């Protein structure tokens, strides 16, 4: 439905898009994700003809967008922009009715088609109850839904959404994207620039990751949203897990690992170990894990955030090479932290380690591990500044959890 053929766009002298090729079939719901300034909005603006590409071609339903009249494009593509500023006090219903502009001749008045389109657009966006109010009286989120209603009233095969959920409450975020999903299922082609990666992964069937004006990856959410790609696009470490409710990818951005930071090896399994891994990673520590049983809670978290993981099949003795790999990680770590149930080779590694700790609050810490607070752990690692920063939070947290 939408075909971009090696499209390049320059605004002024600056190249904004370079050699972008994209083919969005009918009925697809594509999310454009990427950091600020990656070119998401510009990409949308080439699809509706506002920006003419300096190279390549943009076709919608087989028509070259650049050479088509605005009216023809207006019948093919509806756009919900990021922000809308309306100068005078129009009623909501009037604004939505403006969506019918490309379908009406200069001297035609509204016919039944127009009225039905406007009414159903008001219903579907949950804006019918303020149809008679002035657009000026609405909140930003309500206004955004009115603009969505206007785009629906346009009844085009293609719908472009630029940050459709940016100023919406969680209820209307989900409703808006569910509506877009529904429209795509009914055969419309929807392309949305979305910042919230979790929502994008949950509702869209395809994600295109933009970075610096070109497409870094394009495919199903599970394939596109990987920690390495996200780090190269956004410049931030992320943990990509699975949303326990929807089963779709869930992305958690992490604090930067400091240069010359410490490396800690976590021994143990279960939710205690998982929580400890998360807590250390969140503080900017490079964490290695193992041996953990495959499918264990700690294993899942470790896969998402840890630097290196050694896992082994559950319910059977740990193979020698796995144990050796874990021992190697322990050797390279500055300290060992024990969390959760510990047995077999893990217990041996912990006993042999000179610097084995258990974090304050851990259940059932073994007698050979020093129980310390986060701050004391960092002190022991020789990281005074980090110790200072962690201390108040830990004291506070410790007091509350016990």
């Amino acid at each position: 439905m939408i075909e971009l053929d090696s499209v390049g766009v320059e605004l002024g002298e600056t190249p904004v898009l370079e050699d972008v090729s994209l083919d969005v079939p009918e009925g697809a719901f594509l999310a454009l994700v990427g950091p600020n300034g990656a070119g998401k909005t510009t990409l949308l603006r080439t699809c509706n003809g506002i920006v003419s590409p300096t190279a390549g071609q943009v076709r919608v339903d087989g028509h070259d967008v650049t050479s088509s009249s605005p009216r023809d494009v207006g019948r093919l593509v509806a756009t919900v922009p990021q922000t809308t500023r309306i100068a005078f006090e129009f009623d909501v219903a009037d604004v939505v009715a403006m969506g019918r502009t490309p379908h009406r001749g200069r001297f035609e008045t509204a016919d039944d088609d127009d009225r039905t389109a406007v009414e159903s657009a008001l219903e579907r966006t949950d804006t019918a109850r303020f149809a008679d109010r002035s657009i000026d009286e609405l909140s930003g989120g309500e206004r955004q839904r009115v603009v969505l209603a206007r785009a629906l009233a346009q009844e085009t095969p293609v719908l472009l959404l630029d940050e459709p959920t940016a100023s919406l409450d969680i209820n209307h975020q989900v409703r808006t994207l569910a509506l877009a999903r529904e429209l795509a299922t009914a055969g419309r082609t929807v392309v949305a620039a979305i910042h919230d990666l979790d929502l994008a992964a949950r509702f869209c069937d395809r994600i295109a990751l933009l970075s610096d004006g070109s497409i870094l990856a394009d495919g199903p959410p599970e394939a596109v949203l990987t920690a390495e790609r996200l780090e190269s696009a956004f410049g931030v470490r992320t943990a990509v897990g699975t949303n326990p409710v929807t089963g779709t990818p869930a992305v958690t951005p992490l604090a930067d690992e400091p240069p010359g930071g410490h490396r800690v090896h976590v021994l143990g399994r279960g939710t205690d170990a998982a929580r400890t891994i998360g807590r250390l990673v969140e503080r900017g520590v490079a964490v290695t894990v193992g041996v953990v049983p495959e499918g264990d809670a700690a294993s899942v978290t470790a896969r998402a955030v840890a630097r290196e993981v050694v896992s082994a099949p559950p319910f059977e003795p740990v193979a020698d090479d796995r144990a050796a790999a874990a021992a190697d990680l322990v050797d390279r770590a500055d300290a060992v932290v024990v969390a959760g149930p510990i047995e077999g080779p893990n217990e041996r590694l912990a006993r042999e380690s000179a610097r084995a700790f258990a974090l304050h609050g851990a259940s059932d810490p073994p007698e050979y591990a020093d129980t310390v607070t986060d701050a004391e752990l960092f002190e022991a690692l020789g990281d005074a500044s980090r110790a200072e920063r962690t201390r108040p939070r830990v004291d506070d947290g410790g007091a509350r959890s016990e």
Partner: protein
Amino acid sequence: MVLRRTLAWSAALCGVLLSVVLVSAALGYAAIGPLDVAYVLLNGIRVPALGGSGVTWTRPFGFEVATTTGLIVTRIRLPRIALGAIVGFALALAGAVMQGFFRNPMADPSIIGVSSGAAVGAVAFIVLPLSVPFGRSAFAFVGALLAAFTVYLIATEGGRTPVATLLLAGVALQTFLGAAISFLLLHAGDDLETAVYWLMGHLHDSTWGRVRLALPVVLVFFVVLLAYARDLNVLLLGEEEAHTLGIDVERTKRVLLATSSVVTAAAVSVAGVIGFVGLIVPHAMRLVVGPDHRILLPTSALAGAVFLVATDTVARSGAAEVPVGIVTAALGAPFFLYLLRNREVHAL
């Protein structure tokens, strides 16, 4: 729905206009009753009838009115009232269009230099030793359009005319033309009074000839602007959004600019620079009927006609006649301030 509201408002304003015309025609140096005015108007109505020898025109009414009364009304008062109505209609119409076009309720018809251009043309004609029938109006009209076109050319680059550039180019050209007017006035000599009087904007020497000059232009372009009323609404969303709704933005802007410039030029060339009508009337009507240009354009135009006929009546009723431009400004500015204050109160 919109059509019904437009017609209702327009009918009501036509009624108001008619009564203002009757009252205005009755007021003046010679005392004439409104009833006599109505008789004169009715006597003037001609109805076509199909007879044996083709179409014949008959006058269905034959009220008894003194000849002098009839002459005063038809030769002196009515041309002035008619011209006032046309000028008010044109200025308020163009003002409404410009306010929508610039998405700014403080815009007025002369914002892109139309009035200054007309003033240079008219003053040049007054000062130069020329004698052409309707020469002053013709010079003013041409000057107005030249100024508007110049501003448009300055502000256009690569087929795009950004509204902000247009506004600034208009301000710059107005300043330049102001200098030209001052220079011409310095060399006006005996014509100085005529020139200054023209600049103030007045309907003093109205004739049916001028009415015949201005009326067709204003009516034709009024229809064009009505046809673009919906596009003007969509333009209020911003140019990008108008584009995504299928409006050819640059073409529409050209049509709106050209049309409203011609309408303004027609008004200014017959009556001089009458300020405030084009600013106040659309603004006030927007508060009453809302921002939809399909209603706003015709109602503003009619209200402009009512406003100028009424203020011109005040202008010529004093001990000494003053140019109507002074009256519109003197009445308009306080009224505008009142609106401004009231709006703030509503907003709070």
